[in-house]
C-alpha cells in the first residue's frame, strides 16, 4: 500500500517535471526547424501534401548531402489543425529545441503567422511565411524578422487581375466587368481584398466580396448570390475543404470553369478531384510548376522514396501543394546556406539565419544546380524588400493534371509596393516598432 502510494507519487512528479527538463539536448552541427503542420481536421486535404513536400526535401538534403553544407537539418512536426491556439502552443513548445533553438518557423497559416509575428522578433526566430501571412510585413525595414518571398497575396491579386485583363484583351477592357472574390472569412482570406478594391477603382471593374465562414462546407448562400450577380470572373481565396465545395458548387451551377481562378492555396489536386469532370478548366495561381518532371523529383525518388523514407506515397508527388512544400523547404535551405557563407558551416542561430534570408540571391544557375531549373523563378531578397516581387503563373486543370497556361506574370509593383509600405507603417506602429535604416545593414 505504502510503496504503491510512493510509486504513484514519484510517477506523477516525473510526468509533471519531465516536460520542464526535456528542453535542449545539445548536439552540435544541427539546425532545428519546427514544423507546424495540420494532418488532421478540416484543413488536412491542403495540409498533408505541403507537409510531406517539406519533410521529403529535408530528408533528401540529409540523405544525399548530409544536410546543408554538412550541417544536418533536424525538425519536429507539431499538429496545429490550422487552429491559432494550438499553433501558438506548438511554437512555444518547439522554439527552444535543437542546439541553438529554432532558427526559423513556417506557420502554414496566416492566422498563426499574425500570432507569431510579435513573438518571433523577441525570441529571435525567423518567420518564413512563403506566399502567405501579413502582406505588410514584406517591408523589411519595419519587419526584419518576417519573410514572405517569393511573393505576397497583394502581388498575387494584382497578377491575377492582370491575367484576367490579358484574357479580356487588355486591362482597359475590364471596365464594367463583374469580378467576384470568394474568400475564407479569416485574416488569410481577407488579405487580398484591399488590393482588389484599389484595382477595381483604378480599372473600373465591379468587385463583389463574398465571405465564406470557417470551415467552408456551407456555401449555398454564396453561390446563390453568384447566380444572381452572374459575374464574368471569380477569384477565390479558399483553403482546405472550402475549395472542393466551391469547385463543386461552381460546376453545379454551370459556371464557366475557365473563368474561375483560385489563388495558390486553392488549386491543388485534392480541390478538383472531388468535382470530377465538372472541374475541368478550373484555373489557379502558382509560383512554381506542378508535376514530377524535374530533376529534384528524380532525386527524391532515388534518395528518399526508394529507401522507404518518404513522408507520403510516391504517386502523390507532384501535386501543386506537394511541390510548394518542396519550394518552401528549398528556399529555407538556401537561406540557411546563404547565412553559412558568412558565419561558417555550423549550427546557426536565428539571427544568423535572418541575415542569410535577407541576403538570399537565388539565381537561375543555382536553381539548375539543385535540379529545379524551370521549376520555380529566381528570387532576390533585400533588406527593404522581403517579398522579392516574384512573378506568378496560372495553371489549369484538364481533368487529369494541372498544366501551366500562362507566362510568368509580373505583379503590378507600382500598385502593390506603395500599399505595402503604407500598411507596414500602420502595422509596425501597432507593435511599437521603429523603421530601420537599410543603408546601415551589412
Amino acid at each position, binding site marked *: 500500500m505504502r510503496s504503491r502510494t510512493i510509486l504513484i507519487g514519484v510517477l506523477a512528479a516525473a*510526468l509533471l517535471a*519531465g*516536460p*520542464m527538463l*526535456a*528542453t535542449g539536448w545539445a548536439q552540435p552541427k544541427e539546425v532545428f526547424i519546427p514544423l507546424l*503542420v495540420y*494532418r*488532421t481536421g478540416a484543413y*488536412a486535404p491542403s495540409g*498533408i501534401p505541403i507537409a510531406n513536400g517539406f519533410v521529403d526535401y529535408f530528408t533528401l538534403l540529409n540523405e544525399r548531402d548530409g544536410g546543408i553544407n554538412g550541417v544536418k537539418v533536424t525538425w519536429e*512536426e*507539431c*499538429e496545429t*489543425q490550422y487552429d*491559432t*491556439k494550438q499553433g*501558438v*502552443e506548438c511554437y*512555444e*513548445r518547439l522554439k*527552444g529545441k535543437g542546439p541553438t533553438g529554432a532558427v526559423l518557423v513556417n506557420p502554414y497559416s*496566416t*492566422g498563426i503567422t*499574425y*500570432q507569431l509575428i*510579435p*513573438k518571433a*522578433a*523577441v525570441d529571435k526566430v525567423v518567420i518564413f511565411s512563403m506566399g502567405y501571412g*501579413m502582406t505588410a510585413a514584406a517591408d523589411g525595414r519595419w519587419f526584419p524578422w518576417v519573410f514572405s518571398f517569393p511573393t505576397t497575396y497583394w502581388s498575387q491579386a494584382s497578377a491575377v487581375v492582370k491575367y484576367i485583363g490579358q484574357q479580356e484583351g487588355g486591362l482597359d477592357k475590364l471596365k464594367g466587368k463583374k469580378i467576384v472574390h470568394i474568400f475564407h*472569412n*479569416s*485574416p488569410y482570406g*481577407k*488579405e487580398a*481584398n*484591399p488590393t482588389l478594391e484599389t484595382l477595381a477603382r483604378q480599372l473600373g471593374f465591379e468587385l463583389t466580396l463574398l*465571405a465564406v465562414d*470557417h470551415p467552408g462546407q456551407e456555401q449555398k448562400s454564396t453561390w446563390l448570390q453568384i447566380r444572381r450577380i452572374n459575374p464574368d470572373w471569380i477569384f477565390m481565396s479558399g483553403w482546405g475543404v472550402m475549395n472542393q465545395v466551391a469547385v463543386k458548387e461552381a460546376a453545379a451551377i454551370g459556371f464557366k470553369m475557365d473563368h474561375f481562378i483560385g489563388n495558390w492555396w486553392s488549386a491543388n489536386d485534392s480541390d478538383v478531384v472531388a468535382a470530377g469532370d465538372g472541374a475541368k478548366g478550373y484555373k489557379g495561381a502558382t509560383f512554381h510548376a506542378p508535376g514530377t518532371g524535374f530533376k529534384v523529383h528524380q532525386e527524391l525518388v532515388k534518395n528518399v522514396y526508394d529507401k522507404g523514407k518518404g513522408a507520403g506515397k510516391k504517386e502523390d508527388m507532384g501535386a501543386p501543394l506537394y511541390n510548394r512544400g518542396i519550394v518552401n523547404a528549398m528556399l529555407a535551405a538556401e537561406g540557411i546556406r546563404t547565412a553559412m557563407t558568412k558565419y561558417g558551416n555550423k549550427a546557426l542561430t536565428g539571427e544568423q539565419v535572418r541575415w542569410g534570408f535577407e541576403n538570399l540571391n537565388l539565381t537561375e544557375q543555382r536553381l539548375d544546380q539543385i535540379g529545379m531549373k524551370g521549376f520555380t523563378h529566381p528570387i532576390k531578397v533585400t533588406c527593404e524588400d522581403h517579398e522579392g516581387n516574384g512573378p506568378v503563373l496560372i495553371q489549369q486543370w484538364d481533368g487529369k493534371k494541372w498544366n501551366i497556361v500562362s507566362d510568368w506574370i509580373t505583379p503590378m509593383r507600382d500598385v502593390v509596393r506603395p500599399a505595402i509600405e503604407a*500598411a507596414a507603417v500602420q*502595422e509596425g506602429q*501597432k*507593435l*511599437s516598432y521603429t523603421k530601420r535604416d537599410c543603408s546601415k545593414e551589412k
Partner: protein
Amino acid sequence: MIYREAGQFKMTYASDQAIFPIVQDRWLVAIGIVAAFVVPPLVANEYWLQAVLIPFLVYALAAIGLNLLTGYAGQLSLGTGGFMAVGGYAAFKLTMAFPWLDIIVVFLLSGVIAAGVGLVFGIPSLRIKGFYLAVATLAAQFFLVWLFNKVPWFVNYASSGTITAPNRAVAGLMVTGPNATAQTRYVVALALVAVFALVAKNLVRGRVGRSWMAIRDRDIAAEIIGVRPLQTKLLAFGISSFYCGVAGAELVFLYLGSAETLAFDITLSFLVLFMVIIGGLGSVLGSFLGAGFIVLVPIFLTNVPHLIGLPLPVALQKQMELMVFGGLIIFFLIVEPLGLARLWQITKEKLRLWPFPH
C-alpha cells in the same frame, strides 16, 4: 488524520460562516495561492507559463463566469464565446482609444461592456427556458462573432480583421504586448482570477447566490417566496458576462497576443460549457478543475509519446489524443456525473473520517 477537526470549535457566527470553516482547508488554500504566485514564475519555463498555465487561468475565469449563470442560476448558455469576444474587442478598442488608461482598468471596463451586452441577450431568459434558452444564447454567439467580423470599426479598420495587443505597462512593468514577459502576464492573470474567484465564492454564499439557486431549483416556487425572476436572471446574465468579458480580454491580451473572430467561435462556447459540466455545475472549485482538465489533459497527451520516447506520426498522435480525451470525458461523467468537484467533496468527506470510519 490530516483532516481531523477535533478541537476546532466555532465560537462565533462569523467563524461558522467562513468560506473555509475547517482550519486545514484555510491553510491549504492559503498555501496554494501563495505557491501559485511564487513557484511558477520562478520555476516554470516560458512554454509552461505561456502555453499551459496562462490559458488555464483564462479559461478558469470564463468557466467561473459560466458556472455562475448555468451552475448557480440554472440558465443554460451557449453564448460564452460571444461574450468573451465582446470583452476582447472592447478591451482592444478602449486601449487604442485611451492609451493612457491602465490596462487592468481596461480589462474591468471591457467586462462591464460585456455585462451590458449579456443583459440584453439575457432578456429572453424570462420567457424561454432550458434548451430553448440555449438556442437563444446560441444566436448571441453567432450574432456577436458575425458583428465583429463584419464591421471594420471594431478592428480599427485593419484589413486582416485581426486585433493585436499593444504594449501596455502597469507601474512600469510591461503587462501586454510582445515585450511583456510570460512571468508578468501569468502573475496578472493569476491575480485577476484569484480576486474574481473570491468574489464569486462570496457572491454565491450570499443573498444573490441563494436567489439564483432558488430560481434554478424551481422558479415558480422562488417567485412565490419573493425572488423576482427578471432581476435575478438578468443579474446572473450580467455578472456572468462580466466574468466572461474579462476572460475574453485576457485571452487576447495575456494569452494570444492577437486574435481574430475565429478564436471566439462556437467551439470556445462548447469548451467552456464542457469545463463547467466536467468540473461540476454550481461549484467554483469545479470551474478550476474543469478548466484544468480541458486545458491540461490534451497538452499532457500530446507530450506523452515524446516523454516515453515513442515516435508517433503527428496525425496519429492527434487522433489518439482526441480519442483518449473523449474517452476520459465519458469515463469521468459515468464515474461521477456531478463533476470533478463532487469527486473532491467525496474524497474530503472520507478524509475527514480517515483513519477511523464509522
